[in-house]
């Protein structure tokens, strides 16, 4: 093990942390870390998808009946909103690589606005379910017309899955809004951490696409069940 010196910290980058030799190494490490985290998120959501698959397979008819209670128009609208937000996120990352501060900020703001729109629509959707006493638990007492002929126990199971999974997803949206907000703050203050290096923006983008992608699976699984 010869120990020739490696010239450490040859070119100082403002965002470079002490444990890395150069910014390329840092960026690569960050990306590996981010993707590992996403794998972890996929396994996390994978667990609930497994539960969904099992019960859908077992109670297909009841799931079909009760899914009419979900408003597919609102779901489709939200899907569009999230898809558009992913587009604006891509544009934000694109302009971040070009170091175009204003356009990055604008696109991030657009993404945030979409996220808020999504949550507002979700609020009305959840509200309707509470109104029809479709929230699972001791207060689950929907009128017959809202059951659409489904077995009440299975209907409750379906609503449990619906609230559980979309709730976890909404939590991810809220966390996303917070992260994008912080990122916007950095851009606004011209923090060299983000203006000199596009990677932080890229990583927030990866997270946001993941959240979007989860919804792309959730929408057909809950709102578009075939007979």
């Amino acid at each position, binding site marked *: *093990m*010869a*120990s*020739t*010196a*490696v010239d*450490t910290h040859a070119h100082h980058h403002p965002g470079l*942390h*002490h*444990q*890395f*030799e150069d910014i390329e*190494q840092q960026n*690569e*490490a*960050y990306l*590996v*870390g981010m993707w*590992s*985290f996403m*794998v*972890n*998120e996929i*396994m*996390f*959501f*994978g*667990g*609930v998808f*497994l*539960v969904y698959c*099992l019960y859908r397979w077992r109670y297909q008819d009841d799931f079909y009946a009760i899914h009419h209670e979900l408003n597919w128009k609102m779901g489709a609208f939200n899907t569009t909103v999230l898809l558009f937000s992913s587009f604006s996120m891509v544009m934000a990352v694109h302009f971040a690589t070009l170091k175009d501060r204003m356009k990055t900020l604008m696109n991030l703001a657009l993404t945030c606005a979409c996220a808020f729109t999504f949550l507002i629509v979700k609020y009305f959707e959840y509200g309707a379910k509470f109104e029809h006493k479709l929230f*699972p*638990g*001791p207060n689950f007492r929907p009128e017959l017309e809202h059951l659409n002929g489904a077995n009440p*126990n*299975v209907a*409750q*199971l379906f*609503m*449990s*899955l619906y*609230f*559980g999974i979309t709730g*976890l997803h909404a939590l991810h949206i809220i966390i996303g809004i917070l992260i994008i907000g912080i990122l916007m703050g950095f851009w606004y203050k011209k923090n060299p951490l983000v203006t000199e290096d596009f990677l932080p923006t890229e990583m927030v983008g990866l997270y946001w696409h993941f959240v979007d992608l989860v919804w792309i699976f959730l929408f057909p699984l809950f709102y578009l069940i075939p007979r």
Partner: protein
Amino acid sequence: MSKTLIQPREIPEQEELNYLNNGTSLKSWLLTGDHKRIAVLYLIGISFFFFIGSIAAGLIRLQLMRPTGVLLENDTYNKVFTAHGIVMIFFFLVPSIPAVFGNFFIPLMIGARDLAFPRLNLLSWYVYMLGGVMFLAAMLGGGVDTGWTFYVPLSSMYSNTNVSLAILAAFMAGMSSILTGVNFIATIHKMRAPGMTWGRLPLFVWAHYATSIIMVLGTPVVAITLVLVLFERTFKIGIFSPELGGDPVLFQHMFWFYSHPAVYIMVLPGMGVQSELIANFCRKKVFGYHFIAISSLAIAALGFLVWGHHMYVSSQSMYQSTVFSLLSFLVAIPSAIKIFNWSATIYKGDVRLQTPMYYALAFMGLFTIGGLTGLYLASIATDVHLTATYFVVAHFHYVMVGGALTAYLGAIHYWWPKMFGRLYSDSLGKVSALLVFVGFNLTFMPQFIVGWLGMPRRYSVYYLAPEFQAYHIMSTLGSTVLGIGLFMPLCYLTYSLFKGPRASANPWGAHGLEWLTSSPPVTENFKQIPIVTDEVYDFDYERDHREHAEEADSEEVE
């Protein structure tokens, strides 16, 4: 390896700042990003929880001295063994070697200045401690009686104890474990020193790479499972409980999908330690280096396909059980590869019987017994007889205490001089290692027999079979010896911190980047990042090189 770095310098240098005395305020410890300091924080936390878990274990052993029980009510007994299980698994075994020694030595071994994400590392410690405090609160506020497995519907519908808080605590421990895993993966991929190729990684690092993969793939599944149990308990939504339309076997599938691989989270780092100990105390390159490295990954991969062997007596289909049984047998192959390769390394090695090597030898024997008795539980016919008996208890204690804990103790004794720059008494170390070995076997060998005879686990009394008492008394005696053996290192290691002789950079004459830097290491690990030019565990190279250097020196003198 250049000569100046191998041999302790002859001219005593003035006292330099190392990671321990570089900043002494409490804040400099609690807000540190230094992986070595975080490892020390973990060491303190983990030792504390190990102590709590040991007290619970002592209470269990005391209770079983008499067929009618000694001290505890049935309910209390349930809470005590649950506390023992949860504390030892989630707060000791899972983080033990990775969070202390992985944290401390992976950057040193691969020639990096720190882990890739120091702040994430610190966060993982806080999350771990928060989880630990939450579990302590759950314990002191009335306890939990579900067993560490949180089986539904007991945990979600019927238990009136602090299950929710305990579940949150386990969730926190899981999050901390995920953060550690992500950090290790990024570090091992991207932070290796120039010349430190994958083929030159110490086997300790390989083992942690495999462990991290399990942490990232498995832990989120148990996290979501526990969240669902929590939903069910809080909102009475029916995911797992049959009363609410759910399926309890689904819970078992999801739980064991993590919790069987979690066994490998606990034991793979121990195997990594074992490889280091065997190589360095036999002064020999590990026989079959590549096979050991790849077998770690094979264990990680196969570990995900065997969870069904916990469920032979559930409603799982017979054909499913058959497949799981076959796959479970397959895990024995990579484990055996390791054991045989270690044995081959010892053969004709220059064996030095110092304290860490005592633990390494103990590991080989005990883990082999643990692994071989696992085959009884992997084959369906014998498992149906043995399910939920003391045979199972003895089996997994042989793997987890005989394997993981022994390796943990071996690691402490091996790396203590590097971590704290002090030497402990080798003879006391050997005595304690022997006590641990004897005490451990005396505790758990009788449990194999009594389990085979039919003693069920988790029973607080056994007055219907008073003939089991002799075995239980032997077991309790053994646990006392084990307790003394475990208490001794606490004393002499703490003593060595203050009064022990100072350690040189490489007191064992071991091979590896971590022994190149000073003991204790400086905050930035290496003055200059080393360039690796020789193979891993290359003791021949080192010896030749040193002789060559000495010859060159003597020529110069002439």
